[in-house]
């Protein structure tokens, strides 16, 4: 190309995008390559030099801790996304039903649900820790005692701890699912509901045959996004249980953190991080495909 044909510099998109790309290259791309490289080493901490080896990945597969963590993470993720999808859908349907009848209060309910979502994760962990206090000051313990439970255990026994960590995560994440489903429901043409009413459909039938089919695309996207968010959960669990008792609530991110900063096994921590990243990338690839299909539809 000759100089005469060249576009003026201000017309070139990549000139405007350069600061962003530079930042992402240095603080995203380079770290991602570096963490992959580190996962192939026996690095112990930040300072000491390391040798290349596959041992990190190999040892993970044989490690009972890794298998135990995978079990905890699977339960946590599966139960969280099920809860968030179902409650998000129910609340969105409720708010939409209220709006269709022009009942006041829908906006208030929406705002209340979203408050849980804007709270910092650490604060959510502390709030639930206070609610679940097993001494006299805990309100959930008191409620349990009214129902006949004596000396209930919430966070001090493995099973209940995992249950309550999951509940707290559902409480936190439902708002996001709700707002996505709500936005999706808003795009359903009202005529469809009117037609259903004329055909004599009840509220449940409308939900089943009008709302749900129209939401298919959004539900799938929602599913991918909350799966990733739940997989990455870290801040909320720390004040709530710290991963305990024992390692009963040690989710993936917490496991990585412990490997690197408590056990000084940087290489193994990086290997788990790479696995986590690979799952994330695979899910985002699904997400991208769904987005394209949604746009095409």
């Amino acid at each position: 190309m000759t100089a005469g044909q060249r576009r003026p510099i201000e017309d070139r998109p990549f000139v405007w995008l350069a600061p962003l790309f530079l930042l992402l290259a240095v603080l995203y791309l380079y770290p991602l390559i570096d963490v992959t490289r580190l996962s192939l080493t026996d690095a112990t901490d930040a300072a000491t030099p390391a040798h290349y080896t596959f041992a990190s990945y190999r040892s993970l597969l044989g490690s009972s801790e890794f298998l135990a963590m995978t079990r905890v993470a699977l339960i946590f993720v599966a139960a969280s996304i099920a809860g968030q999808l179902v409650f998000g859908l129910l609340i969105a349907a409720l708010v939409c039903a209220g709006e269709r009848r022009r009942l006041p209060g829908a906006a208030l309910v929406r705002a209340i649900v979203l408050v849980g979502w804007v709270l910092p994760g650490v604060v959510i962990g502390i709030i639930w820790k206070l609610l679940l206090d097993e001494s006299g000051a805990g309100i959930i313990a008191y409620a349990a005692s009214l129902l006949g439970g004596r000396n209930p255990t919430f966070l001090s026994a493995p099973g209940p701890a995992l249950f309550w960590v999951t509940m707290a995560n559902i409480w936190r994440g439902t708002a996001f699912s709700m707002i996505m489903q709500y936005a999706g429901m808003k795009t359903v043409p009202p005529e469809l509901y009117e037609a259903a009413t004329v055909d004599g459909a009840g509220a449940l039938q409308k939900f089943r045959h009008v709302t749900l089919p129209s939401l298919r695309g959004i539900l799938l996207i929602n599913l991918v996004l909350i799966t990733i968010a739940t997989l990455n959960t870290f801040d909320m669990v720390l004040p709530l249980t710290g991963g305990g008792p024992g390692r009963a609530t040690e989710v993936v991110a917490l496991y990585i953190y412990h490997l690197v900063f408590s056990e000084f096994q940087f290489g193994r921590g990086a290997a788990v991080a790479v696995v986590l990243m690979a799952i994330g990338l695979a899910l985002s690839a699904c997400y991208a495909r769904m987005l394209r299909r949604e746009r095409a539809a």
Partner: protein
Amino acid sequence: MAGSAAIYAGYIVVALIFLFPLLWVASLSLRPMAELFAFPPRLVPEHPTLAAYRDVLAGSPLARYLLNSVKLVSATVLCALAIAVPSAYALSCLRFRRPLLKPVVMLGMLAVQLISPLVIALPLYRWFSGLGLINSHTAVVLVYVALSAPFATWMLTGFLDTVPVALDEAARIDGCSRLQSLLRVLLPVMLPGLAATAILLAISTWGQFIVPFVLLTRSDLYPVSVGILDFQSSMDSVSTHLLAAAAILSALPAMLTFLVLQRFIVGALTAGAVKG
């Protein structure tokens, strides 16, 4: 109408589930120590007092943590917008030589957000240790900006797409350079979008935890999200009211911002969700 009554019953249940935890913690924070273990527990304290807030703000490092957070959040929002505005302009108003590149860049903006900050914080910790950048607020802000600029770019591109192209063209015909057109003509028009983006960035950065947790080791530099964890581990059960007050104080800025501007934010969020 039975239907409306059922809907209101639903509203009340939902509001209780999402509000009660907060109300309970607010109630704990307003109690004198003697009422902490009152039995049966009551939501409204008998002798409410703000003493816990006074003690926390005056007698603990929480005020310093809050100040650090304000510093980090404002620097991050400003820098992220400064990077995102030109990027959004390129994505929305400029012609790419290969048309396929634009959707690829847009998808990339979404994809990077799906990577856990922990994954990049690990190598950054090693790298920054070598460079002596551990315990540097500047380094933390840089990472925050990298985490939030893609989201900001993506949001702002959406807003710029709604601004008529004619505006940009008219400004250019009148002799503005592209930069002048962006700063003097387009920015004022997209101010609501800019504000919504800034608010969402501020709320998410306020809650950001992993990056400062890994990159800061000196407690006087902690933002409130990390500081309150430190605060929690230094507490025992007789100081529950202090922890509750600290939790409320660290959540308050994000909560108030959200409540005051919630219509605005919900609009921006739902617009984004529908666009995909």
